[in-house]
């Protein structure tokens, strides 16, 4: 009996090689780009060129290749690329998904359906868009040090998010939620190509690139059913502030005849209540002065208070402007609808379309600012 079991065991365990996939037979995709026009999807796949990483070979091949095909469905387009490559395409190692505004506005349902059904795509992949460029152009850029373009975009988002507040990182799972819920607008980080005139001004960038373009992160894009709006830097900072996403960011403010920069050490913002059509926003921001070029004497105890007031007033202005813009465009990029739905569901149900009713809302700010440090110096160097 035992022998029979051992034999049976061998039979079934050895069948683990059933439908095995050799690494060399796979086309490992690092980036996926989708656009939609004339009832057809244009799919761009960035495939890792594994031979470029082979230590034995001394070739200077690019680290990736880019393939583009059209199809009535995304799957059809993938199959066309697979045919071209004579390899099976795998999306397990995707580092970025770029969705063109055409695909978001015209036929997002099919794309979401494809991504949800694909068992290989990780839910952690960053999803971005490109307003001025198409996904193919973005994914084709050769990056400094011949790094894989998709990984480079991923790092760009991370750096811009942690230092400048102009990125709005969204992972695939959050993108799905934005699509599924009616109180959320889809908001994506905007990856753009620099114009060639911009690049000529910066020769350093050209040293390591073979291509006359380079990538940068522009302000986030917010989508409604018909509208596409690019936030300005202040609106982007307000959005990231409300999302508590600006720690370590550097912010610059105008002061008495000059300006100063702070680094945000800790920021806690959030809507606190919704009452009589008023949205209450509370927040506290702690920071340190990194650079100071104002006429006030920094040795004076009152100067920090003055600077705190400057920051506070700037934030009041930025939040009010962003809120008014949101009302004007009927685009809920401050995610007020989400707050009302989560905390005042009954009231949300009464409001059929929160974006429209935003017009009636007011925002009430209560912000405190603590500048806890004056940087490394004991006092004002300009004294």
């Amino acid at each position, binding site marked *: *009996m035992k022998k029979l*079991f051992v034999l049976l065991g061998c039979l*079934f365990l050895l069948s683990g090689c*059933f439908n095995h996939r050799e690494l060399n037979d796979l086309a490992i995709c690092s980036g996926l780009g989708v656009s939609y026009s004339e009832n057809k999807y244009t799919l761009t796949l960035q495939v890792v060129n594994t031979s470029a990483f082979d230590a034995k070979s001394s070739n200077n091949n690019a680290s990736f290749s880019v393939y583009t095909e059209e199809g009535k469905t995304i799957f059809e387009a993938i199959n066309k690329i697979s045919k071209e490559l004579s390899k099976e395409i795998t999306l397990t190692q995707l580092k970025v998904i770029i969705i063109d505004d055409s695909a978001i506005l015209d036929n997002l349902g099919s794309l979401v359906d494809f991504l949800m059904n694909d*068992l290989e795509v990780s839910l952690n992949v960053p999803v971005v868009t490109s307003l001025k460029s198409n996904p193919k152009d973005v994914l084709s850029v050769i990056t400094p040090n011949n790094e894989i373009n998709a990984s480079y975009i991923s790092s760009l988002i991370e750096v811009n998010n942690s230092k400048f507040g102009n990125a709005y990182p969204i992972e695939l*799972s959050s993108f799905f939620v934005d699509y*599924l819920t009616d109180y959320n607008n889809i908001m994506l980080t905007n990856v753009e190509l620099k114009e060639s005139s911009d690049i000529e001004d910066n020769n350093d960038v050209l040293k390591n690139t073979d291509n006359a373009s380079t990538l940068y992160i522009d302000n986030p894009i917010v989508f409604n059913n018909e509208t596409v709006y690019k936030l300005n830097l202040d609106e982007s900072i307000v959005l990231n502030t409300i999302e508590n996403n600006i720690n370590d960011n550097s912010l610059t403010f105008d002061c008495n005849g000059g300006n100063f920069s702070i680094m945000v050490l800790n920021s806690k913002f959030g809507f606190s209540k919704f009452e009589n059509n008023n949205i209450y926003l509370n927040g506290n921001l702690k920071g340190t002065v990194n650079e100071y070029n104002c006429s006030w004497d920094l040795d004076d105890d009152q100067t920090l208070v003055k600077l705190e007031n400057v920051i506070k007033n700037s934030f009041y202005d930025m939040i009010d402007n962003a809120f008014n813009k949101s009302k004007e465009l009927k685009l809920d990029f401050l995610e007020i609808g989400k707050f009302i739905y*989560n905390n005042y*569901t009954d009231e949300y149900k009464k409001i059929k379309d929160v974006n429209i009713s935003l017009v009636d809302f007011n925002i009430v700010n209560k912000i405190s600012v603590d500048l806890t440090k004056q940087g490394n110096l004991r006092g004002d160097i300009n004294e």
Partner: protein
Amino acid sequence: MNKQLNSTSFSLMISALNKCLFLGLLIPYMFKISKTSTFISVIVGFVISLFFFVMLLLLFNVNSNLSFVGKVKNNFSKPFSFFVTHLQIVIVIMLASMLLWRLSSFATNEYLYETPIILVVLLISLPIFYISVNNFTVLCRFNTLCFMAGLVIIIFNFIGLLPHYDVNNFKPFFTDSFGSILNSAIHYAVLTVSPVFLLTIVPKNDISDCKSFNKKMMISFVYSNIMGFLIFFTIQMSLHIDLINLYTYPAFTALKIINLSNFIDSVENISSILWYIYITLAVCMCVIYAKFSIKEFYSISNNRYEKILGIAIVIIILLIVLPIANMSYYLDKISIMKFPFYMLLILLLSYLFVLIISKLKNKS
């Protein structure tokens, strides 16, 4: 039965039996019914299941030298004991078939989609074949080994998903109706506590240290439910409710987002071993239960017959599972949940009925 059993290894069986119906059944059902209030349903369900669990402990104390079948034979007429025993055997075989079906369709849907389902079912059945021809002690040893693995996996998953936790996923609070919360809680109670009653196949006196039996059983039951709560909590903290309700296996989908320091990711296939452990153990328990019930009812003492009986039961389960193995996506038809629920409710009521009658008879 063997007297090598101790109450610790015996009580640890609760951990696997308690959670065997989670994957692809209880988890998606509860999230679909009670939505963001699911964690409340789990707590209410635990309180309800506690009542049934106390009944289980009382059942162990009635004629503690006899197994459940022995108790039935002892306290009821032959036709009635025949009916109860065989009804239970049928239900237990159906339960095992359902578990094996869920596990094989999970494997096919999530990663072995190119492998023929027959091969998947047979592969999963191999350890079941091995354990089923042996006795309950072997199952307990296997379970004790797996218990630590299960604990480590649950804690790893809990920590791995920490960066993705979002309290907003619990919102809006208390917006679901009381009826849906209670419906979900009753399902939780019935589907988690009924498989634990299968342990009654072992007479309490066969356990070496039965003085601490009740205490250890209670600790194990509470621990198992805390782990169950942790599983629900982790899923809800890491995925939005609308996303959870789209997937047949949200427990698996949640594991897909684990990414520790950009270094440890794509660990869902390893972490999902947890469900293989729990379901395999529960199927083995079902087979052993059916085997010992038949053995005891018909007073079979030959060891060879016992082994043949074990193999025959596994083959019957396979014959039920193989034709339905391809029917994988069903949860949208929520009425299908009625089948396991009512089936296990009948099983549970049969135990409670036997308990009450036996108590009354013993008193008189």
